[in-house]
């Protein structure tokens, strides 16, 4: 039984290097020396897809576990804190709501998210139930300079520059985690009779041998798509967007406020992302080429830029064009090859799911790598099941944003047509009319998105908390306790708003002083 001793990651960028660092941090002995060979092969001249990106709070845990100091990460990647997503004009033009990472307040068994009643509480759902909404909807930081690195007062992920992130991970991976970096181009994989990859032939003719191969080569999916017989299942019939026009615009001044959440502004045929980093904002119009052509999309983007930065800036931008095929594969681990990142699939970045899928896949893989080839199937099957389920839930959750919209136009009407809905969505919507969104539902427990996220979108878009009208004991308990709890939330919001510095101030201080480790 040949043991698995060498893992080869194909492709750099954030997916490749994050995966490599995660695997390398897991496979270490007590003294910190590597217990598995981890190598990363990347072509020296493929540029990284460097658009402004958002992460989930899971990235804090990931970076901490790979021993990357947060202050170094924030400063090197010119990153900022992402406390959630602010959705503007989604329900109808002029409307806005927040989807923060902090769940609605709970006390004992009372979930304020199930107690919200629009007829009694004039505040919109997110503002009424989330104690940190005052931070997420402004430019206030989720913590102070005295808070230890990776700790928080309000839960957060990051806004970061993907190119700078990949650079930092490369440096950290090679110098601290002992990853072998092989800058070369792959010609083709070599297989044995059983269909397992034995080695990769480089363009110079050299052979790089390995036991387990991770395909992080992006949408070209060098190994998983081109050589293994797997296919990408398109989901453009559910999520119509298949293109983006992206720009980067510098902040007008060095002390321009940095927004705490990703802004997502609905447009005629898609939506515009707006991600604030320390030095600039990454802005892009995600749209469907089936509904709008490129020049119209560009006009809409310029209109947004004009509103935010003025006419002159709007005229000067040169948007980058990106095309993508929304969809994902039916399996992600075949024999001794695993697909992570865009090689596994791609969905529009409406809820910043790309990096969390890389993290989730890589940590699961790190826990699942078997001792030898003979046991691969035991790991691959549950791996595939778990990830397939996650992809399906992402589609489901993203579609929810669209079906609840009241916007006019062919694009939005098409989204509301149930023939474009994934199977379970109609059932969920019916069920949520009858009773509140429940943390205990089977789907919620295994979902990548917690019940709180569904609450923020569903009620943020104006839907009431479900009820069948029955008088239950829990309903009475809630009615009694809720008013005080809602007051507590408002008080907490004000206290946090007063106490927290702005993102800009905090990031400047972190650059100057670093953060305490405890």
């Amino acid at each position, binding site marked *: 039984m040949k043991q698995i001793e060498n893992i080869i990651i194909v492709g750099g960028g954030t997916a490749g290097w994050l995966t490599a660092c995660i695997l390398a941090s897991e496979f270490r002995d007590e003294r910190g020396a590597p217990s598995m060979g981890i190598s990363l092969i990347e072509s020296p001249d493929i540029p990284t897809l460097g658009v402004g990106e958002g992460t989930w709070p899971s990235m804090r845990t990931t970076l901490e576990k790979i021993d990357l100091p947060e202050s170094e990460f924030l400063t090197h990647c010119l990153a900022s804190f992402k406390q959630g997503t602010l959705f503007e004009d989604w329900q109808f033009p002029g409307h806005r709501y927040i989807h923060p990472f902090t769940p609605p307040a709970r006390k004992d068994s009372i979930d304020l998210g199930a107690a919200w009643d629009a007829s009694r509480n004039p505040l919109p759902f997110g503002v009424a139930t989330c104690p940190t909404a005052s931070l997420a909807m402004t430019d206030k930081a989720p913590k102070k300079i*005295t808070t230890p690195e990776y700790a928080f007062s309000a839960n957060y992920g990051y806004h970061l520059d993907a190119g700078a992130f990949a650079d930092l991970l490369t440096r950290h991976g090679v110098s601290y985690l002992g990853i072998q970096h092989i800058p070369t181009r792959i010609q083709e994989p070599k297989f044995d009779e059983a269909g397992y990859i034995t080695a990769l032939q480089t363009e110079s003719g050299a052979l790089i041998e390995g036991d387990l191969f991770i395909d992080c080569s992006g949408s070209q999916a060098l190994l998983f798509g081109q050589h293994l017989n797997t296919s990408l299942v398109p989901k453009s019939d559910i999520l119509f967007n298949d293109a983006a026009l992206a720009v980067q615009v510098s902040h007008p001044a060095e002390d321009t406020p940095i927004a705490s959440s990703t802004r997502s502004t609905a447009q005629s045929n898609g939506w515009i992302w707006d991600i604030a980093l320390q030095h600039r904002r990454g802005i892009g119009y995600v749209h469907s080429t089936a509904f709008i052509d490129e020049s119209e999309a560009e006009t809409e983007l310029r209109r947004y830029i004009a509103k935010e930065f003025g006419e002159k800036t709007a005229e000067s931008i040169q948007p980058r064009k990106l095309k993508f095929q929304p969809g994902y594969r039916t399996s992600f681990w075949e024999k001794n090859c695993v697909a992570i990142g865009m090689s596994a699939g791609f969905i529009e970045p409406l809820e910043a799911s790309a990096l969390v899928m890389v993290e989730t896949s890589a940590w699961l893989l790190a826990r699942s790598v078997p001792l030898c080839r003979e046991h691969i199937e035991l790991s691959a099957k549950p791996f595939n099941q778990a990830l397939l389920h996650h992809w399906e839930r992402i589609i489901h959750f993203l579609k929810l944003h669209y079906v609840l919209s009241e916007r006019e136009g062919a694009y939005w009407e098409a989204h509301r047509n149930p023939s474009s809905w994934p199977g379970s969505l109609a059932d969920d919507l019916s069920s949520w009319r009858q009773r509140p969104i429940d943390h205990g539902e089977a789907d919620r427990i295994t979902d990548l998105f917690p019940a709180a996220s569904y609450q923020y979108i569903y009620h943020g878009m104006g839907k009431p908390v479900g009820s069948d009208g029955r008088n239950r004991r829990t309903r009475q308990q809630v009615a009694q306790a809720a008013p005080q709890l809602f007051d507590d939330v408002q008080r907490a919001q004000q206290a946090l708003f007063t106490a927290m510095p702005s993102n800009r101030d905090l990031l400047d*201080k972190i650059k100057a002083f670093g953060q305490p480790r*405890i």
Partner: protein
Amino acid sequence: MANYQLLDPQHHAETRVLERDALLQLDRGLLCAAFTGEFRAMATDFPIVLIKDANTGRFYCAALLGLSPENLACFDHEGRWNDVYLPWSLKRQPLLIANKEGQDGGTTPMVSIDLDHPLVSTLDGKPIFEVGETLSSTTEEKMTALRSIHANVSTTESFINTLLKLKLLTGIKIKGTSRSGEPIVVDDIYGIDEDALRQLDSDTLGRLHREGQLELIFLMVASLGRVSAFTRQLNRL
């Protein structure tokens, strides 16, 4: 507001400083800065802890003077100065060291005075300068404290860095009850993690010993013994 001026006999001929009992008038903070050179003298009177600077998040050493502003260990129940060690950072007041920028771009440390400090007076207390523009004995004592601080700043910083690098710090929370029954909590302070200390290997311990830092660590540990005296004192007048 502070009003700093370089100390000089012409401008400050009439300036006086109130005596140490007048420290009562100071802002009754629970903590004052502490430096490694005075740990030995201080440890039997005050718990020595680390706290974070609110503006920078950086740690500095501090003496815990008491558990509530009405109950500072340096004052007896009649409000007079208890015969405890007077930390340099209190002794030096209202004098301080300011860095004067030279023409070459470098800085020179110069003794300065904060004229808005509550200890500064033109009527009461001891004069700063005696006849003939010499320093009074009070002022000499304060200058000695300033010099001691100046000489200990970098050893204190490097001691703190060592504690951080070796992960020897842990949060401390002190709980007590005031005489009126109100709960008193002092947290946001840090001390030595004795479990982590016990796990250090002999090479590291040897290095700490040779660099004089092992003694400082144990002085900090021992100084926490004062905490129970403090909590008892909460219940006295």
